[in-house]
């Protein structure tokens, strides 16, 4: 099993460095044809999200598209992929804080009925998903 870091995903999608783009592409091609097994972490997924939001801006649909494609890369193991997919599907696109959606859905999946936070947006999301 090979761990894939944030930069690999960014280089693969953005092709801003030709050499590293080709290296990342080759790795994913090998994985998709079953020659290698890849995995990554939730932190990497969020790091990609934070970077894309910083680079493209808050409301750019490219952020959503790239995250969605990463989750479709079923040849890469991602922990809690189902929660991430659900979070992405449920985010309010124009007010989209992926971590709030993730935390709210994660809390609900663990069958909690209460959430302690000072973050109004997270509370709002939790109550919305709960209802």
């Amino acid at each position, binding site marked *: 099993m090979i761990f894939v870091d*944030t*930069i690999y995903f*960014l*280089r*693969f*999608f*953005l*092709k*801003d*460095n030709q050499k590293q*783009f080709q290296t990342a*592409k080759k790795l*994913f*091609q090998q994985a*998709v*044809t*079953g020659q290698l097994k890849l995995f990554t972490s939730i932190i990497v997924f969020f*790091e990609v999200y*934070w*970077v*894309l*939001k*910083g*680079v*493209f801006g808050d409301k750019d649909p*490219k952020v959503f*598209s*790239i995250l969605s*494609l990463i989750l*479709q*890369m*079923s*040849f890469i193991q991602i922990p809690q992929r189902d929660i991430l997919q659900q979070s992405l599907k449920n985010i309010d696109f124009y007010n989209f*804080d992926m971590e709030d959606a993730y935390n709210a859905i994660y809390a609900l999946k663990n069958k909690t009925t209460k959430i302690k*936070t*000072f*973050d*109004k*947006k997270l509370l709002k999301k939790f109550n919305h998903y709960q209802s």
Partner: protein
Amino acid sequence: MTYYATITSKRQLTIPTAIYKQSGLTKSQKVIVSIDNGIIKIQPALDFVNQIAGSFQLPPKYKNKNISQIIQTAKKSYFKRKFKQPSL
């Protein structure tokens, strides 16, 4: 080209011969199965990777910048924005 096919109790589906031949799929080939608005899509896995590789462009102002710096700056500004206001 549209055909009827039946899903078995093990969720298996036989691709109609004509569609199989036209698709260029081969035995044991890896495919990506996805669903989009209720329509199930089967795509050669390698095509999927090739199709999405390099499919987004970095905004010009970030071209030729060090990726580690971009990551650091993007994360810093993101969290600065997120936590700048009192939440409650």
